[in-house]
């Protein structure tokens, strides 16, 4: 198709474009300068009729590359959808007439602005090819699920139910994981319809854990193959073509291929030995919530006995947040989210068996959210569990008894209670592998103590779980506290290793019910990744994008910038240290392209040229014209929509600005900057997303990488002896509707102050 390119331009004169701008001139520019074979005008191009006009040209083979000059690329997307051809769009409505005031005094510059956008769109499309996928794609309807517990088992069962095959890798001798010893589980439901709101209403009680049933279902399922006492010793490939070595203790290893991977390795119980103040380890009658389940299981409905002397427990105290919600050395800073309901349940074990037994829960905030949660709190109260808002400070051993010292926060006094058994509600420690960026964290730590902390994390790094054969490390990157969670509130399954999804408590602390829901979600994403890989389509956020990065080998200097900077660790290196892009691992952000100092990396529809030529296409008035040119490179996810919305709400922008949307600031090549400066632009504004710990960059590190690269652009300016102010890099949010245009206008003001660039040729 690229063989004989047919360029066609289309100009919409609706929405005031025709009234505000000289349409004939725009068409002429498209054909004469923009090299469009023709430029057809239509009073309402997005109408059925207008769209048909374009369709006919495509059908007739007269258009393989089309330039649409109309509204923003964010508008009328459904109407202007021609997947079979390459398309660029000149933003004349939001980008020009809505951002510029009417009136003769503005007419000339506004028209020039529109002229340039048409030139730029023509240039862009000339250097685009409609992508068709890499041809590397394969469909593999099989998932690798790693983990022992309820989360992993749920994932396996849900995948099988959807028609997928599963290899379930469990590193223990039996399935069940952390919930193996569960006696009962916290009820999944609230009271049903019809139950009154009276204090006497019957409420859900602790229920059968259902773990055994799950294991049976797994064993009975022909689609699921379980590997016990097994580890994943090597994972290579990409979505659609993952290959994993599964090795069992006995030493044998099998290699299997997968479409995608779910890591559901749950959590490790917190090590209570770190809580000497509560006499754990000193008295056998101080146990963790995990150990209590075993006692309950052993008692099996009979009296719960003290480990020390086997006497029936007559008084038990639960210490909530044991080693949690605390910044003490060795404690967990977070709340594990499941301990409140677990303790209520366990207190009810004692009450169910002997109502005379005193069961007291010492809590700070009792956290039982939702409908089921609050009903279960009530159920515990109905069972006459005592809830005291108090902070336990110590557990003393005196003879056969234990004394819990605590501050009663309600009665505001230091006090103590005697009991036979103390249960420590300890938390969840994510069972994740080593953070691939642990070393990076050390290097990037701003302060000394943060450096020290990072170094410590590096030292105590856990063993690998996935053993990824990736350039950027063996496991999923951590977000915080060792959890391999997504950073995005709206996208909990946004993963930094394409095709590999974390599920359950390894992602964030959660109870069993949420882990089961989470397993289903992660499994869907894994299935989706496999299906998309089969089509060669990108995963979130550039869903369905068929383009992929390629490079000119002869030009490559094997500098490895691309393999280092890829935010998703998608790029490996072959034996000669050339990049291997692993298309289906790629998220199409273009950070590699931006990173490449020799400009050899490009996408079919997004390349050094597709942007570079737009920059060059702009008509550059001479130094004395008093018409500076300001280049704005704006992130298409946030800054560009902000400018569109500014246009919608009557914002104004300097007529000298030329805005180009980029996939991510990380894709910005320094060559664009130098070219722009050399061709006489007077100022350059770069607008990317927030890049700190609360980063908003949808490609994780893209914006950060760009900022680092651009920090060196000062040298370039010096070489050209241009003022540093001529280039500004900003973090811009989608809500910066007033600010975004202002930043551009500020640059215009700066240029007015420091004068035009001498580089106008």
């Amino acid at each position, binding site marked *: 198709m690229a063989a004989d390119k047919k360029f066609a331009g289309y100009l919409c004169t609706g929405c005031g474009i025709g009234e505000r701008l000289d349409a004939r001139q725009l068409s002429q520019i498209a054909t004469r300068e923009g090299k469009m074979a023709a430029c057809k005008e239509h009073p*309402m191009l997005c109408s059925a009729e207008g769209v048909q006009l374009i369709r006919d040209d495509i059908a007739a083979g007269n258009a393989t590359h089309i330039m649409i000059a109309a509204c923003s690329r964010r508008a009328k997307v459904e109407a202007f959808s021609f997947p079979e051809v390459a398309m660029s769009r000149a933003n004349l409505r939001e980008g020009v007439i809505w951002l510029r005031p009417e009136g003769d005094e503005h007419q000339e510059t506004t028209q020039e602005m529109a002229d340039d956008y048409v030139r730029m769109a023509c240039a862009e499309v000339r250097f685009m090819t409609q992508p068709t996928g890499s041809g590397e794609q394969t469909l593999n309807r099989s998932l690798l699920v790693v983990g022992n517990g309820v989360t992993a088992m749920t994932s396996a069962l849900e995948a099988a139910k959807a028609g997928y095959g599963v290899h379930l890798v469990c590193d223990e001798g039996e399935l069940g994981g952390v919930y193996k010893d569960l006696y009962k589980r916290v009820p999944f439901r609230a009271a049903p319809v019809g139950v009154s709101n009276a204090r006497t209403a019957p409420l859900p009680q602790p229920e059968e854990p259902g773990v055994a049933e799950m294991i049976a279902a797994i064993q009975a399922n022909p689609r699921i193959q379980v590997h016990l006492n097994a580890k994943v010793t090597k994972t290579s490939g990409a979505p659609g073509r993952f290959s994993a070595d599964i090795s069992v203790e006995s030493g044998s290893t099998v290699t299997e291929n997968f479409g995608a991977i779910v890591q559901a390795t749950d959590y490790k119980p917190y090590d209570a030995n770190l809580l000497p103040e509560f006499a754990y380890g000193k008295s056998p009658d101080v146990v963790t919530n995990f150990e209590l389940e075993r006692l309950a299981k052993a008692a099996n409905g009979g009296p719960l006995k003290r480990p020390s002397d086997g006497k029936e427990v007559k008084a038990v105290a639960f210490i909530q947040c044991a080693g949690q919600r605390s910044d003490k050395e060795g404690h967990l800073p977070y709340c594990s989210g499941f301990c409140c309901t677990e303790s209520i349940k366990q207190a009810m074990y004692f009450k169910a068996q002997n109502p005379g037994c005193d069961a007291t829960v010492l809590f700070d905030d009792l956290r039982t959210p939702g409908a089921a949660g609050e009903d279960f709190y009530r159920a515990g109260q109905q069972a006459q569990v005592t809830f005291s808002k108090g902070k336990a400070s110590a557990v003393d051993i005196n003879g056969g008894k234990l004394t819990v010292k605590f501050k009663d926060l309600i009665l505001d006094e230091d006090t103590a209670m005697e009991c036979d058994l103390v249960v420590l509600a300890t938390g969840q420690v994510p069972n994740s592998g080593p953070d691939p960026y642990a070393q990076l964290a050390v290097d990037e730590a701003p302060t000394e103590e943060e450096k020290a902390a990072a170094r410590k994390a590096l030292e105590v790094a856990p063993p690998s779980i996935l053993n990824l054969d990736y350039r950027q490390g063996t496991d999923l990157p951590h977000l915080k506290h060792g959890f391999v*969670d997504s950073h995005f509130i709206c996208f909990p399954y946004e993963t930094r290793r394409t095709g590999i999804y974390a599920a359950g408590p390894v992602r964030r602390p959660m109870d069993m019910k949420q882990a089961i829901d989470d397993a289903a979600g992660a499994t869907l994403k894994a299935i989706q990744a496999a299906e998309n890989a089969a089509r060669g389509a990108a995963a979130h956020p550039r869903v369905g994008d068929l383009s992929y990065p390629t490079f000119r080998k002869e030009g490559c200097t094997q500098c490895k910038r691309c393999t280092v900077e890829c935010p998703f660790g998608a790029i490996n290196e072959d034996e000669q240290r050339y990049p291997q892009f692993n298309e289906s691992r790629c998220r199409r952000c273009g950070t590699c392209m931006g990173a490449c100092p020799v400009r050899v990396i490009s996408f079919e529809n997004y390349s050094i040229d597709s942007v570079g030529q737009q920059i060059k296409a702009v008509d550059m008035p001479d130094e004395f014209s008093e018409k500076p040119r300001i280049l704005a490179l704006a992130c298409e996810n946030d800054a560009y929509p902000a400018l569109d919305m500014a246009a919608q709400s009557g914002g104004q922008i300097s007529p000298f600005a030329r805005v180009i949307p980029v996939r991510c600031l990380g894709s910005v090549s320094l060559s664009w900057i130098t070219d722009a400066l050399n061709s006489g632009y007077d100022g350059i504004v770069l607008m990317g997303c927030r890049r700190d710990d609360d980063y908003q960059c949808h490609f994780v590190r893209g914006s950060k990488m760009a900022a680092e690269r651009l920090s060196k652009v000062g040298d370039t300016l010096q070489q050209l002896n241009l003022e540093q102010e001529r280039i500004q890099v900003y973090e811009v949010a989608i809500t910066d509707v007033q600010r975004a245009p202002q930043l551009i206008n500020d640059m215009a003001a700066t240029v007015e102050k420091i004068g035009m660039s001498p580089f106008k040729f």
Partner: protein
Amino acid sequence: MTEVVATNETILVVGGGISGMTAALEAAETGKQVVLVEKRPYLGGRVSQLYKYFPKLCFPTCGLEINQRRAKMNPNLRVLTMAEVTGLKGEKGNYTATVKISPRYVNGNCTACGECEKAVSSEFDDEYNYGLGKRKGAYLPYRMAHPAQYVLDPRLIGTPEADQAKAACKYNAIDLDMREESVDFPCGAVIWATGWQPYDAAKIQPYGYDRFPNVITSVEFERLADPQGPTGGKLVRPSDGKEAKKVAFIQCAGSRDRNHLLHCSRICCMASLKQCTYVADAWGKDADVSVYYIDLRAIDRFEDFYAKVRGIEQVKFIKSKPASIVADKEGNPVVHGVDTEGYNRYADSFDLVVLAIGMEPSVDQASFPVDIVLNREGFIEADEANGGVFAAGCASDALDVNRAVQHATGAALRAIQVVHGAAGVEG
């Protein structure tokens, strides 16, 4: 007449809020045919009315932009707005849905150029701003609304203004003859994502929401804080426009209360912590914030955010469910109660009181068009008896956005399992 192309392998998603959008998009991006039915004229639901998300304090419109792009680009997804499911017959793998579509009086020709809005004059309460502001009778519900297509308020129909609007449109986008219509189409599985609504604050009589203008709800406060909101983001109080520097947040307003909602609405604690930062950011040292709570439920990693807000010296936390609110002569709400940590009585006067209002399911138990297993709070429980109908997000429980999306993604899988069955992919 609206045509809907569908088969028994189609997935019907009811509700176009964050949960419904997510379920629909995840299914469509897995290659399934999806019909998304939304009652409002636009997608995004309540999330589109939030200023910021906790705990990142990022902007919901950011994720919405991406989801809207996903929706625009995906050929597997069909969106019906101003539409409601009124009937659902059949069984798992083989349903027939009946959908009522209310007239928008604006067709797909609309370019959102805004001429009709300029042509009309009368104004109505702005639903998008919970009635805190006004909008025209021809309107784009909000700036980022998708579909980017205007709406004509039915109250305009039959008035000269309707004709003025029609006359102002160059693109034949305004069709005053549109009528309510009802369409039937098949589907194999249904994802019920009808979300939540704020509990009626007027029912919490001791707090006088119905009597004191300076007692407002947390959802209203979001609109006040939003620069796109009715006050341009200025934190001023309704009665007299006075700057709201001394602000009280009252937790469990309607939640955890046998007189109102029995359940814990989960989000309110975090929402108030987030809104504390709005006040602190707006007034700095002059901010004076009190949070009255029973249990501060900053669950799991949200604890980090709680710690962060506790670090703001202008914010104090009082463990107490306030007994009542009265207004003084200046219209300042005075909050009465007892601080249960040490039992100190208080009668604190504020510029503004924000009720951290509870979440209730937006579909009441009586009006489900299909038999479905509910709990006593009206949330849908996962149950075999629901056949091919699966809840997503807040239709299933009081959830924050992150959990709602998580839940909706799982719901997409369960729906896909059903249509795979219908398609014989399974086995």
